[in-house]
């Protein structure tokens, strides 16, 4: 008769417990990840769309709002005054220090392209339409929590932590901007 009170080799039994446990943990982890990842953007959502905008009819001081990846993008043709105001700000005064040159493309200082989503909590700031408030720095004003952006889309006041995002874009020609 065998003695069941102790396994022949306790170390072997421990090894089996640990490997079984490890396999179960990995299995649960992998299965769990599929549950979590299913909530991430699906392939069709990820299929990146680019947006082309014809800007030939825009006057200085005018803005348009276009849709890119479901998000609004502001394109503003800035007036010389607005460009000067943006360039003259001492960078050290800014919460998210960036020069105007870092926000626009060289030689195309007239055109400012930013994602129209406040970096605070995702509202669309006002200021793209003529009758909307532009805030005290002449750029945009977010009505939700009072963030104020300047004519380079930089945060100047209020709770937003960073400047309006500049999306990847290129000038396909002098009159067409391709965003994305």
């Amino acid at each position, binding site marked *: 008769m065998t003695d069941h009170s102790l396994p022949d080799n306790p170390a072997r039994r421990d090894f089996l417990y640990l490997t079984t446990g490890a396999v179960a943990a990995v299995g649960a982890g992998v299965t769990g990840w599929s549950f*979590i990842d299913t*909530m*991430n*953007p*699906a392939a069709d*959502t990820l299929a990146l769309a680019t947006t082309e905008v014809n800007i030939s009819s825009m006057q200085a001081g005018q803005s348009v*709002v276009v*849709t890119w*990846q*479901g*998000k*609004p993008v502001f394109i503003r043709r800035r007036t010389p005054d607005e460009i000067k105001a943006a360039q003259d700000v001492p960078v*050290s005064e800014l*919460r998210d220090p960036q020069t105007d040159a870092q926000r626009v493309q060289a030689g195309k200082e007239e055109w400012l392209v930013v994602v129209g989503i406040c970096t*605070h*909590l*995702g*509202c*669309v*700031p*006002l200021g793209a339409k003529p009758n909307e408030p532009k805030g005290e720095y002449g750029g945009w004003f*977010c*009505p*939700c*929590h*009072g963030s104020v952006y300047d004519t380079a889309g930089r945060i100047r*006041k*209020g*709770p*937003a*932590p960073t400047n309006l995002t500049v999306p990847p874009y290129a000038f396909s020609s002098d009159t067409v901007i391709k965003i994305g």
Partner: protein
Amino acid sequence: MAHGPREPFDNKIVEWVDSRLPIFTMIQKEYGVFPTPKNFNYFWNFGALAMVMLVTMIASGVILAMHYTPNAAMAFNSVERITRDVNYGWLLRYLHMNGASMFFIAVYIHIFRGMYYGSYKQPRELLWIFGIIIFLLMMATAFMGYTLPWSQMSGWGATVITSLFSAIPVVGKALVTWLWGGFSVDNPTLNRFFALHYLLPFIICAVVFLHVWALHVVGSNNPTGIDPKGPQDTLPFNPYYTIKDMFGLSIFLIVYAFLIFYAPTLLTHQDHFVPFNPMVTPAHIVPEWYFLPFYAILRSITFDFTLYLIVAGVAGGILIYNFCWRKTPCEKTKPFIPALLAVTVLFGIPAMLLAFFKDVEALKGVIAMIPLANIHLIEAKLGGVLAMFGSILLLAVLPWLDRHPVRSGRYRPWYRWTLIGFVVSAVILGYIGSQPAEQPFITIGQLATLYYFGWLLVIVPWLSHNEPVAKLPNSIHEAVLADSVKGGKK
């Protein structure tokens, strides 16, 4: 739960069931003869009222879900169809919409009751924590339900609240994309919110079960905060409190019915009746009234936590710990107290200037001279989110913030008035939350936020050791008799 010897029932069917599963014995024990303090006032109605509202919300919600379409293109119209075309759809929708408000009214009064009469204190700490968990689950459920009609307020409310998580360092952005299932609040977001809005109420039911179970283990608190000492202090739950709850419920339902039938949209913003447009944010985003105080706390943190603020906060925190949380300062800290005071003041002044006086013209020159002003460890956005969640999570640890031996606010003259102040600060915050983010509302909101946190973190711990102990009655019975003599009743 109901084990041990069992009294047989006369009814044969009842007895057949009960001898196999003693559910009737359990109901009899927990809701029939359950010994309950005899001095409850009407504040003790609100637990039962919240329960009634939970059942009402689930019943009306299940039926609404049969008519609702969780698709971004169709959701708004399906809700309008419920209101206009579905038989009694208007009634179910308004029951559900205003039911959320009535549920929160009941729960807020219930929480106030717990705070005023010290119901959170030993041995009811776990019971209290289950309550706060229920409150948090209710907030999540209500928020997701608000998204479902896919109106301007729905979509933008969802955008603002989900974006809160983007404040978390490193993983924030990825987390928000994960919550959305895309790059903005869109159809995938609506789908999952609907699934969760249907699921969470049943999780609430499970936690309510634990809450009530814990209550029936330790028994109810009462207005005197004194434990019942014998049969002269208690009454059987039925019929005394079943009747009292029914009376309270009748009054409560009159208010609820008034809202449904005469002012169904009184508590809702008109932008809730405009379809969601992801390109245009409404001029004025406000959450439902029951979230306003927390929303105001979120918006009150308009300043980054600079090096100065953190250092002053840590030094001040050590002082508060020593003089408010402890009865006497810790011996080891004593020699450093003058130094800590100096640090608090020296760092506190530039911290205050940077946080609150940046826009004052006269001070601009002084503020520009402060070195290292741009170093901040917590950005305003993250600070706001932490403050908002902290304002609720701190309530969960109230049993450990308040260590005063007396439970009821009736016998705590200082606690009582500072608690009323806490309620006033919450009401002020609620008003501020409904106003645009501009002066003077910002400053008023910041002061109310200061009192909210100051009460929890400074006043209550200090009172624990310094509030005089009033003479308590010897028993509930004695307190009730003294009341009747004073009131000229017999």
